[in-house]
């Protein structure tokens, strides 16, 4: 007998709202479907009413965890559009901030993965090691999250000479801890038994489902935007792309742990090689045209497309965030697994639902892909009216006007 289990939209283990409908037969999963848009904020539309400088702060708030990946991708897109070459020092600073973010994001994921399997020691450890990185961000940029370091044509703030030893000290202290952590996880028979052969993704499936980032690399697909389409200063430092072959949850964890060590290596080289010089170049008037920018976010390829009509606001901004691309592979990873593995496999792609919320219109079973501004507005008004009608009796329902 088939049963549908809803997971979400507000599930105790999910930090963000998302609905997964899992169809099971007994203990085995036979199908999965997912719904989004509880977090849809209409960022692409709001961006059209902001100037390029303001839009930078907006794209920073697409996702709090990748809050430097989206600005870098947006800057890359606008710099591609206006043909701007940024100064060398800015390139190194961008790399350092992006790699520090990767460390904090991967540690955050490890902690949450521990939380999902009920191993709270791992959660507390990982988040404790993450805390010095957040403090570094506060020293460098003044904010623990959403650093506002990026600027079209360079970076907004310098990494000062007196900050460099602090960064060195922090990453030097972090490195043995990550080694210890990796050994503790990979030698722990409980963890191995829990993670190995769960949610397997073959290399063919990883390619066919168009996965990106650590999920693809864990299945043996050797892709990394930092090496394949280098931006910032990744082509000037020595590092390697981490790949595994198994494609299970353990492989994803290994890829993320080893990537932290690679990030530490990159930061160390950048701090040594960083040349003195200006932080930004003067930005000319943005010409008519279009530009694309890519960035390897902690979760995979982050893609921004900017179209300009010659004014100071983008005419169109299109964002393709990595989590959205990675989620469809659940169909091949889930089917045949047990109910108890659901959340672990969900966690393995490190889905960040803030990035994944879209609007789509379905008319008589056919997908109507294009929606004009007017359609969206009318739909929004209509829904608000319906909601007002429906929630008249509830507390605060009358306050909606």
């Amino acid at each position, binding site marked *: 007998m088939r049963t549908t289990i809803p997971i979400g*939209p*507000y599930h*105790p*283990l999910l*930090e*963000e*709202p998302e609905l997964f409908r899992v169809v099971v037969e007994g203990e085995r999963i036979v199908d999965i479907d997912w719904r989004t*848009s*509880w*977090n*849809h*904020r*209409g*960022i692409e*539309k*709001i961006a059209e*009413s902001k100037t390029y400088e303001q839009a930078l*702060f*907006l794209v920073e*708030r*697409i*996702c*709090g*965890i990748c*809050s430097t990946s989206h600005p870098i991708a947006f800057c890359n897109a606008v710099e591609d559009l206006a043909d701007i070459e940024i100064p060398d020092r800015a390139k190194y600073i961008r790399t350092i901030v992006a790699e520090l973010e990767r460390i904090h994001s991967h540690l*955050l994921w490890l*902690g949450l993965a521990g939380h999902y399997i009920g191993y709270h020691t791992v*959660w*507390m450890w990982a*988040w*404790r090691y993450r*805390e010095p990185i*957040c403090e570094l961000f506060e020293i460098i940029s003044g904010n*623990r*999250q*959403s650093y506002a370091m990026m600027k079209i044509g360079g970076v907004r703030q310098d990494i000062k000479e007196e900050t460099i030893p602090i960064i060195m000290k922090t990453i030097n202290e972090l490195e043995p801890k990550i080694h210890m952590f990796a050994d503790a996880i990979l030698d722990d028979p409980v963890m191995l038994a829990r993670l190995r052969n769960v949610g397997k993704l073959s290399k063919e499936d990883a390619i066919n489902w168009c996965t990106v980032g650590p999920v693809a690399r864990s299945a043996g697909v050797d892709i990394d935007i930092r090496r394949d389409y280098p931006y910032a200063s990744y082509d000037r430092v020595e590092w390697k792309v981490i790949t595994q072959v198994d494609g299970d949850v353990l492989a994803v964890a290994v890829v993320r742990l080893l990537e932290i060590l690679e990030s530490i290596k990159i930061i160390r080289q950048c701090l040594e090689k960083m040349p003195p010089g200006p932080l930004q170049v003067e930005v000319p008037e943005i010409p008519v045209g279009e530009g694309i920018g890519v960035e390897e976010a902690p979760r995979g390829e982050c893609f921004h497309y900017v179209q300009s009509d010659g004014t100071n606001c983008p005419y169109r901004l299109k964002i393709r965030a990595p989590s959205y691309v990675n989620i469809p592979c659940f169909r091949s990873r889930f089917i045949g697994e047990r109910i108890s593995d659901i959340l672990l496999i969900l966690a393995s792609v490190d889905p*960040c639902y*803030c990035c994944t919320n879209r609007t789509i219109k379905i008319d008589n079973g056919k997908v109507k892909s294009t929606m004009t501004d007017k359609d*969206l*507005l009318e739909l*929004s008004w209509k*829904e*608000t009216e319906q*909601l007002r009608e*429906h*929630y008249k009796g*509830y*507390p*605060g*329902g009358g*306050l*909606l006007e």
Partner: protein
Amino acid sequence: MSDNHKLTDMSRWGLKKSPWAFHLSTGSCNNCDIELLDALTPRFDVERFGILLVGSPRHADILFVTGIVTVQALPRLIHVYNQIAKPCLVIALGTCACTGGIFDGSYHQIGPVDKIIPVDVYIPGCPPKPEAIISGVVKALAKI
């Protein structure tokens, strides 16, 4: 504390000791959510004061709301608010929940939170630091 919840000495005493919190994201960017979790981890560790994140609104004394309240999240926010045992404290966490922040004017926004449900404490910041969150909770408890 909104006027429609009359506080007796008993409920005041019950609410003050080890308040349990439920966290609801209604269209946030994740930042406030991870900073809230951060307050639970070893550096700040609010669990030592008995503050705990719980999985069900029925167990909670404090409701943390983050995000701009999107059209799709609105019914859930009202549903969750109705499920919480009253009296409860509602805390709007982050600039988005307080005013709408950078997303103000979005076609998918219905909030901010205080348009929908009564809010006791506002914690602004994008995102607020864990220290700010702890200070907000302390202020909320002082109101009781």
